[in-house]
């Protein structure tokens, strides 16, 4: 007889859930939409698809060196370069039309050439940047180092102006402030360079390339299997799945308070139904709704965005169930602690968002400061998101699902215990 009641409670809750269009949209459409958006934004694209950093260059020097820097920057695949005047540069960056403005001052080439061997009196390169694009600034700084070094060294080893500068340095060497030994060594080196340049004829075609980067980089993203690319969708769907499973549970809790308000709880209590059956029915239906949220959103991500469970499927299922149980008991806790439906909703939404945010559902926790990363282990969502990441793109085994599953079940038990302790059986 209790079984009939139990099954009826589950069936009724599911019927009510599916008859509530807003709840259904919230549970199925929202996570898919938002996760797809986050996934698209955060998934790294193939190299030719990478958005180029837009930068403007002001060449006030117009020397051989500055022209080479400009052409080097222009052909760089990471940059989209435009040559502008000094006044334009400041304006373009201020408007956000370019992330960085590079100003090569008059005399930069010569000064850099002189400083190349002497290491003193270095000229300055002016960088204007959009403060909201710090990452781009760092990237442009790195690329500039490469192009300036290549251009200056290329000019010094074989360029016409380079030879003049070497001659000039040699003739001024006696007046330079350095020890006799150092002067002697520098003289010998510069003389050798002059001989080297003379040997290669100084003609443009036969010119040596100057100093170049003495290495190239081979990059490999370490994910599940050698050839599986990182799929930012997997993390986005984990995060949003966890967020909206909690919202579904929150909604469920509020629905229970509505039942109370409408007097429906009196019918439950007047029927020969044990408290255990009542709670078990609610836990079961809420868990089922939560599981459906996860199935729908991960299912979509697998079909459309080709997210794969690269790790343990059993581990993934276990984390999903543990997460659904944790959410269901959270919903029941809201129903127990809440007084009115609206009051409970108003209090639970910020709490839920906080939990979701600190759990790394919006931005991955590795972006958090170290202390926050340590603190957030007390947040159940953190374990859920990390667990899903481990089973999907990280491709870890069942063993790595155990901790998240145990912790989530622990939270479920704690929430449930509190919910039962505070359940108002006689407030009918």
């Amino acid at each position: 007889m209790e079984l009939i009641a139990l099954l009826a409670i589950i069936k009724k809750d599911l019927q009510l859930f599916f008859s509530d269009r807003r709840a259904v949209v919230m549970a199925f459409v929202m996570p898919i939409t938002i996760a797809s958006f986050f996934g698209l934004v955060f998934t790294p694209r193939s190299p030719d698809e990478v958005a180029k950093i837009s930068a403007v260059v002001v060449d006030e020097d117009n020397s051989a060196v500055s022209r080479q820097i400009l052409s080097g920057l222009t052909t760089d695949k990471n940059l989209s370069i435009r040559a502008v005047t000094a006044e334009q540069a400041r304006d373009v960056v201020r408007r956000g039309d370019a992330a960085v403005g590079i100003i090569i001052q008059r005399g930069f080439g010569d000064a850099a050439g002189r400083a190349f061997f002497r290491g003193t009196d270095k000229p300055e390169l002016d960088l204007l940047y959009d403060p909201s694009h710090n990452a781009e600034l760092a990237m442009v700084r790195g690329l500039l180092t490469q192009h300036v070094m290549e251009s200056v060294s290329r000019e010094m080893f074989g360029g016409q102006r380079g030879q003049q500068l070497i001659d000039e340095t040699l003739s001024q060497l006696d007046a330079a402030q350095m020890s006799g030994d150092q002067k002697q060594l520098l003289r010998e080196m510069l003389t050798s360079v002059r001989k080297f340049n003379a040997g290669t004829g100084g003609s443009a075609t036969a010119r040596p390339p100057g100093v170049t980067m003495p290495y190239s980089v081979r990059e490999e993203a370490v994910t599940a299997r050698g050839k599986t690319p990182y799929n930012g969708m997997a993390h986005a769907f984990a995060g949003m799945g966890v967020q909206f499973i909690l919202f579904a549970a929150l909604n469920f809790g509020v629905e229970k308070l509505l039942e109370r308000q409408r007097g429906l709880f009196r019918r439950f209590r007047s029927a020969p139904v044990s408290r255990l059956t009542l709670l078990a029915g609610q836990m079961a239906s809420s868990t089922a709704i939560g599981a459906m949220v996860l199935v729908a959103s991960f299912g979509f991500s697998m079909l459309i965005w080709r997210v794969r469970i690269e790790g343990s499927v059993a581990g993934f299922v276990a984390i999903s169930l543990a997460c659904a149980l944790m959410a269901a008991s959270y919903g029941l806790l809201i129903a127990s602690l809440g007084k009115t439906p609206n009051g409970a909703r108003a209090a639970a939404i910020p709490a839920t968002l906080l939990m979701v945010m600190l759990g790394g559902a919006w931005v991955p926790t590795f972006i958090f400061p170290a202390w926050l990363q340590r603190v957030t282990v007390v947040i159940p969502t953190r374990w859920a998101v990390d667990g899903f990441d481990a089973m999907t793109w990280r491709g870890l085994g069942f063993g790595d699902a155990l901790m998240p599953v145990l912790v989530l079940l622990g939270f479920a038990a704690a929430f449930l215990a509190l919910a039962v302790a505070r359940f108002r059986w006689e407030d009918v």
Partner: protein
Amino acid sequence: MLEATHLRKAFGALVAVDDVSLRLEAGQIVGLLGPNGAGKTTTVSIIAGLITPDRGEVLINGRARTGDADPLKRKVGLVPQDLALYEELSARDNLRFFGALYGLAGVELNGAMTSALHIVGLAERANDRVKTFSGGMKRRLNLAAGLLHDPDVLLLDEPTVGVDPQSRNAIFDNLEELRRQGKALLYTTHYMEEVERLADRVVIIDNGKVIANDTLAGLGRLLPAPAAPGERVTLESVFLTLTGRSLRD
């Protein structure tokens, strides 16, 4: 059939029910009459087993309930004061669920639903969502939900609030039919004329205390003789004499 003795229930300092005793017999309608806040709903809740009284006991066929899942609860049906229905579900799905709470299933449940819907005249609208129902139809469905498991005792907490005379009469007819079938009914209201029409006995409570428990005729004798010859002794006048005319709530 059902006997409640010396019930008492306090909410903090407020004693909502104070030493209330009453009996319900088969084939009888007892009217529970009292102004707002008198303690009617609280009394009904204790009798239905929703609230544990601070003192006193409720015996059903001579036995006290032993727990939440005691099958003895099936002997009692409750029609709550609120429209305790799922608006989003059809009348039939509502009844299916409430029936299942009492362990009804299959053919038994279908039979009970059909007959309950028929009794309250909602057979034709059985598959419509409750939110499309009028106030009177909802009241009738609220009643049907309490009848579904065929209880011997039916507790009705203001079952006709907000309905038109047609629905009210239909409900009265239903209740009189139930009395004929030998059910024991407790009918809570603050409408005197309802009690005058329906009740075999009347229990009047005020401030949680029983101030009268008698037949209609017996209550009439409580009043002083009519001041003027021909003045009718109404229950209304008994009620106001006993409870006073000041506002409650």
